[in-house]
C-alpha cells in the first residue's frame, strides 16, 4: 500500500515538473499537438501508479520522450511559419465585413450555430454587430464588433486620460511582496512608515495594491477597505 502511495507521489511530482517544463500555454489554450500530449501524459502516469509490477521507468521514459518531441515541435513552430501551419494549422477568417464565409465554415466542419455560439461567447448578442470572426488554430473563436457597435472609448471623445499601468501588489495575505516593492522603487521601511501614518498594521492587511495613479488600495482582514495616497504622479516609475 505504501508503495502505491510513494509511486503516486513520485509520478505526480514528475508530471508537475513536465508540465512546468512545457510552458504556460499548456495551462491555457492548447494547440492540437499539445492537446494530444495532455491526453497521453494522463495515461502514462496512471498505469505505473496503480500497477506495482510495472516498473516506474516504464512511465518516466515515455514522458521524457514526449517532452523531447514536444520541445522539438515547439521549436519548429517558432522557427518556421510553414512548420507551424502544418503542425498547428492556420487561423481561418469565417466572417468578414459582416458576411459569413459558408465555404470556410464547411472546411472547418462548423455550422452556423457553432459560429453564433462563438460570437455570443465573445459577448456579442446581435450577429449584425459583428464585423469579423476568426477561428484560431486552437479552435477558439474570436469575434470583433463593427466600429459603430463598439462601446465609446476615450479616443472617440478626444478625452485625455492618464496612463493606467499594472497595479503592484505590495501586501498579500499579510506578507510584504518585496519584489513588487522594488519595482515601485520603494522599500519596506517606506511601506511601514506609510501604513503606520494611517494607523494600519501590515500583518492585518489581506491585500494592498499600488496603482499607477499613486493610490494604495488596501483591504484589512476585518473587511475594511481604504485608499491611501501613497505616491505622487512623478514618483510612479513602473
Amino acid at each position, binding site marked *: 500500500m505504501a508503495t502505491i502511495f510513494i509511486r503516486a507521489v513520485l509520478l505526480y511530482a514528475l508530471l508537475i515538473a513536465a508540465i512546468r*517544463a512545457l510552458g504556460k500555454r499548456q495551462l491555457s489554450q492548447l494547440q492540437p499537438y499539445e492537446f494530444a500530449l495532455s491526453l497521453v501524459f494522463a495515461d502514462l502516469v496512471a498505469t505505473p501508479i496503480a500497477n506495482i*509490477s510495472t516498473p516506474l521507468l516504464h512511465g518516466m521514459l515515455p514522458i521524457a520522450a514526449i517532452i523531447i518531441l514536444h520541445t522539438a515541435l*515547439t521549436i519548429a513552430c517558432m522557427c518556421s511559419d510553414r512548420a507551424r501551419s502544418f503542425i498547428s494549422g492556420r487561423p481561418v477568417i469565417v466572417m468578414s465585413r459582416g458576411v459569413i464565409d459558408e465555404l470556410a465554415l464547411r472546411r472547418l466542419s462548423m455550422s452556423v450555430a457553432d459560429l453564433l455560439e462563438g460570437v455570443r461567447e465573445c459577448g456579442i448578442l446581435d450577429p449584425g454587430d459583428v464585423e469579423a470572426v476568426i477561428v484560431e488554430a486552437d479552435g477558439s473563436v474570436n469575434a470583433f464588433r463593427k466600429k459603430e457597435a463598439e462601446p465609446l472609448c476615450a479616443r472617440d471623445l478626444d478625452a485625455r486620460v492618464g496612463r493606467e499601468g499594472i497595479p503592484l501588489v505590495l501586501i498579500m495575505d499579510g506578507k510584504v511582496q518585496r519584489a513588487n516593492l522594488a519595482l515601485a522603487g520603494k522599500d519596506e521601511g517606506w511601506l511601514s512608515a506609510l501604513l503606520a501614518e494611517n494607523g494600519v498594521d501590515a500583518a492585518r492587511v489581506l491585500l494592498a495594491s499600488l496603482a499607477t495613479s499613486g493610490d494604495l488600495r488596501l483591504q484589512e482582514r476585518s473587511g475594511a477597505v481604504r485608499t491611501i495616497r501613497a505616491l505622487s504622479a512623478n514618483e510612479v516609475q513602473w
Partner: protein
Amino acid sequence: MKRSIVVSCVLLALAVAVCVWADAAIERALDHADALRLRALAMAESGDEKGAVETITRLAAYWAKCEPLMEMLTSHEDIHRVREAFVSAKLLLQRGDHVGFEESMALLGEWLEHIHTLETISLANIF
C-alpha cells in the same frame, strides 16, 4: 528557447544512457541465467544429479541477487515466472522426475527468451 534545447538534449542523453544501461544489465542477467540453466541440464543428462541441483541452487541465488534491479527494469510477472520455473525444476529433479525436470528447464528457457524478446528493439515490439 536556448534553455529548452539544452534541457531537451540533456533529457535525450539521459534517456539514451538509461536505455543502453538497462538493456546491457538485463542481457547480462539473462545470459548468465541461461548459461547456468544449460549447465544444469547438461549435468542432469550426464547423470550428475547432485551437480545439477547445486547449479540450479546457484541459479536461484544469482536470480535473487539480480531481482531488485530486474524489477526496476522489466515486468515483475516475467521475473516471478522465471523463479517459479527453476524452483519447480529443482523439486522435480530432487524427486527423480527427469521428464518433468526437462520440461521445467525448457519452460525456464522460454521465459528467459521471452524477457529477452520483450527488451529487443524490433518491428514486432514497436507495432
